[in-house]
C-alpha cells in the first residue's frame, strides 16, 4: 500500500485517497468534432512509466493535487499543485 504526501496533511496511506486518473486534460469546447471530443473523453496515453495523475485526499482534507508516479515501480516522483505545470520527469 502506497503512501502519498498530501500537500496539506502530509504523508498518509493510499487508502485515504482516491485516484482521479490522468491530469492536465484540456477540456475542449462544444465546437469540436466528435473525434476530438471522443479523444478527450476516452483516449489516454496510459504510459508504462511515469504517469501524471491527479489524486484527492478523500478521507482527509478533500483537496485535489497532482502526482507524478511510475506505473511499474509505484515510486512517487513528485507531488505538485493542480495549477502547476507538469514537471520535467521523462
Amino acid at each position, binding site marked *: 500500500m502506497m*503512501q502519498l504526501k498530501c500537500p496539506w496533511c502530509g504523508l498518509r496511506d493510499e487508502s485515504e485517497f*482516491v485516484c*482521479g486518473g490522468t491530469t492536465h486534460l484540456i*477540456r475542449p469546447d*462544444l465546437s469540436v468534432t*466528435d473525434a476530438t471530443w471522443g479523444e478527450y473523453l476516452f483516449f489516454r496515453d496510459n504510459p508504462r512509466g511515469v504517469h501524471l495523475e491527479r489524486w*484527492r485526499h478523500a478521507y482527509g482534507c478533500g483537496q*485535489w493535487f497532482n502526482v507524478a508516479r511510475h506505473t511499474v*515501480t509505484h515510486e512517487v516522483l513528485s507531488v505538485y499543485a493542480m*495549477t502547476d505545470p507538469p514537471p520535467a520527469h521523462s
Partner: protein
Amino acid sequence: MASRRLPQPAGTWIDRSHPLSFTFNGRRLSGFRGDTLASALLANGVRLVGRSFKLHRPRGVWSCGVEEPSALVDIGQGARRTPNVRTTLLPLAEGLAAESVNCWPGVGFDVGALTGACAALLPAGFYYKTFKWPSWHWFEPAIRRMAGLGRAPTAPDADHYEEVAADTDVLVIGAGVAGLAAAAAAAGAGARTLLLASGAQVGGALSWGADPEVAALAASARQVGVRIQLRTSAFGIYDHNLVCAAESVSAEGAADLPGCVLRERLWKIRARAVITATGALERPLLFPDNDRPGVMLASAAHKYAQAFGVACGRRAVIAANCDDAYRLAAALAAAGVEILAVVDRREGAAPIAGAAGLRVLTGATLTAVHGARSVRGCTVAPLGGGRGERLHCDLILNAGGCAPAVHLHSQAGGKLRWVAESAMFVPDGAAPGLTSVGACAGVLAHAPAVSHAAEVGEALARGGVPPQAPVGGAGRSDAITRVPGVRGKQFVDLQNDVLAEDVALAARENYRSVEHLKRYTTTGMGTDQGKTSNINALILMGEYTGQAPAQVGTTRFRPPFAPVTLGTIVGRRVGALYRPLKRLPAHDWHAAQGALFETFGDWCRPAAYPRTGETLDAAAQREAATVRKCAGLFDGSPLGKLEVYGPDAARFLDLMYVGTLSTLRIGQARYGVLLNENGTLVDDGIVARLSEQRFWVNTSTAGFERTAAAFEEWLQCEYVDFKVLITPVTSRWANVTVAGPRAWEWLAKLGFEAALTPGAMPHMSLRDSVWEGHPLRVLRASFSGELGYEVNLPADHAAALLARLWAQARELGATLYGIEALQVMRVEKGYIHIGTDTDGTTLPGDVGLARGVERKAGPFVGRRSLLRAAARDPGRLHLVGLVPLDGQTLLPVGGQIAPNPPPTLTEGHVTSSYLSPELGVPVALAMLKGGSQRTGEEVRVHHLGTIIAARVTQLPFVDPSGARVHG
C-alpha cells in the same frame, strides 16, 4: 519406538513441570508446555502423521518449522476448527484435538493409497491428457474428493482479530543472532527500533542450546531500547515499504478457551529502513523414497534434540552435501542418537573436524530407503555405481545444503545471484528500502554475520549506506543431487508428490520456463510454497535443459511468505463493521413505531410501518393511499444536501446541471439533473437559492458522495479560478417530510409560521424558518405528487419533531410512510428514480428531459456528448408508462418487452412496477424503444417464460394536471 523423549538437559524450550495432554486421531497422548504438536508426537513415537496430496503416501514430520510439507493436521471443532495446521509450528495446548488430513478412513489405513499404486499412470499433468470423454464432469467429483487436504470449518469463526499500525525508524525481521546484533546497533545509534521474532524465543538457532551469547545479545538489545515483538511473523512487503506481519496471540486449539478470543493480530509497519535477518532454510538432497516417515531435514533433528528434547530416531544415517552435516552429526551423537554413517555425496570431500569418530562415506549416496510407514534402513552405494551396502537405520537425515530465505528481499524487488560453490541463491545487493543480514544474506559464518549485521544496523540508523554482505561460510555443496539410474521415486515437492521424473517430463514436453514447470508439475504450489523444493526443481530443470540454475531462474516471490489467516488480514472489518450501515438520526424513534427496516444502499431505512399481520406490500398500499387522501410523515434525512456558496456559485451550478439555476430567485427551487461527461444521467435533485451567492443543493441519497466529489473535482481541477465553496451537510440536517392534502394543516397544528402556508409559499420554493427555537429550511417540493413540505432541521432534533407531529396524526387520520409507499406514489406520478429507471446508458432525452437541454443556452457537463449521432438515434429507449391489459397482473420489474418469443432482440424492459392504490390497477414504468411515439400500443412483456400483455400509456398515471402538488 524410533523417536522418543530425551532426558534433561535436552529440551531447553520445554517445561517438564507442566505436562499437557492432547489427542491425535482420537488417541490420548501427552507432552509438555513448550512442545509443538510435532515434537510431542515425535516424543510419543508417532511417525505416521499424514498422507501426501496426490499419491497418499504415508508421511511423518519432515522439518521443524514453517517449511513443513507433510505433517499437517486439522484441529478443533465447529467454530474453532482450523484446517491444515502445521504440527511443527503449533504450540501444544491442554486438550488439543488434532486429526490427520487427506486420509480415509484413517492415516493408518487410507483408501486413497490406491492412487499410490497407480502412480505410473499419474505423472505430472496426467489430467490434461485424458478425462476428455465423455467429459470432465464424469471424473471431476472423484478427483475433487481425492484432492484437497483438510476439511473446511462449517461454522462462522468464533474468534476475532485485530489490526495495529506501527511506525518506526528501523524494523528488523528475525531475531537470530544477526537480527539481534543489527537491532542493538540500530537502537544504540539512536534509532527507534522494532524487532520481530516469529517464535516465542529470540536467538534463532543458538537459542536451541541455551547458548549464553543469545541471552547476552538479547539483554543488550533490550538495554538500548529495542522493542521486541514475539510470535510475530512478517509475511509481506508492499508498496513504499509497508511490512505486514501476523502476531499469534491466543493459545491455538486449547480446550479451555473462552467463547471468543483475540486469536491473531495484523501488524502494518512503516519503517524508514527495513533489515531482514530471516535466516536460511535447508535444501534437501534427492534420493529414492526420500519422503518416507523417518526421513527428515538434518537441522530439524538437531532442533528437536536440543530445543524440545526429542530424539527423532535411535540410529541415524546422514545424507550429506555440506560441511554443516558433520557439526550436526556430532551434536546429535552428543544428544544420544547413534550416527551409523555420514554419506557424503561430494566427491573428494575432506573429512571435517568433528568427523572424528564418525563413519564417513564420500562420493556416495542413498540408493534405496527401506520401510514404507517408518524407515527401517537404507542402502548406500558409490555415486558411480557399485555394490550397495545396507544400513539398519531408523532415521535418515537430509543435509543437502543451505537455502538463504531471500523471500522478503525478492518481494521488495531485490535481485538474486547464484553462488555456484554452495548451490544457493543470495541477495545481489540490497533491495529498495530493505537490507539483508546474516544467513539470509548468504553470510553463514557466525562472526562475520554478527559484525556485518551490527554495521548495517548502525549505518541505517544514521541514514547511511549499509556495507555489502560478506557472503560466504556455507562451504561447498553440489547443485544436482538426483541419483541417476536407480529405481524409486525421488521426490522434489513432497506435498504435491512431484518427482524428479516429473521435472524431466516437463522438460521433455517443452514446459521449460520455470513458471511453466511450476504450473505443469504443481511443484511449489502446496502449503509449504516450495520452501524446500523450489530450488531443487529449478536445478533439475537446468540439468535436463543444459542450463545453469541462474539461467533457469526463480518464479516470482510474492506475499505471503507463509500462509496467513484470512480473518487476520481483515481484522475487525467483519459483521456490522464491514461497510457499516448508516442510520437515521431518529432511528430508535422509527423502530419504536414498528418500522420494518431494510438496507437501501448504505442506509438502514424504514421500508414501511406494517401493522400486525400486514405484509410489506399491503402496508405500502395503505400508507400511500392515506397520504393521498389525508397526509403522511416520512423521514427523508438521507437525501443528499450540499451548501454551495460564493460569488461564482450560480455560474458554477449552471455548468454542472442540465437546467439553469442562476435564474432562480431567492427562495425559489428547481428540479435539476446531472450528467457525466458522456451525457448519461448520474444524479438528480432539487436546487434552491438561499441568497444571491448561496444555494441549497439536494442530491439523491445514493448519489450524494459521488456528486459532491464530482463538484469538487470540477472546481479544483477545471474551474480553478471560480470562487465557490461546497460544504456537505447531509448529516447536519434531518429531513422530516410531510405530504398530502392535509399536510399544511398538520404543520400548522405545531405552530409552523404563516409564511409557510401554501398560499404564501408556492410549490418549489424554500423558506428559512424557526420552530421552537430550532432553525428550519422548509422546502415545498414533492416526490409523492401531493402537497409536500420537506422540513430540514438540525439532525439532533429530528426525533422531537417527528414525535410531536406523530402525536397529532390520529386526529388528522395521517400515517407514517416508508420508502416503499414513496416508490408507489412516485411511480404513479411517473417520476424517475436514478439507477432504477435509468442505467449507465440513459440520456436526458430518453426520460423526457430533452426540452430542458434545448432551452439551455450555455455549456454544461455532458452537453457535447448529447450532440453525437448516437444521442439522437430514433431507436433509443424512452421512458413510458405501462398498464397490463387485463388490469390485474402486476408487471414484473425486469420483464423484457418484445413482440416475439426468445431468442429475439428486445425493445425494452420494465423498470418500476406497483399496484396503484389510487387507480386500483397495476402501473409500471418502462424503457421502450421509440416509446415516445408508441402511446396506446399493445406490447408483450416476457418474464421467465411467461408473457403478459400490456399497453403503453402517457405519464403520469395520477393527477396529470399537477393540481394536487400546486394547490
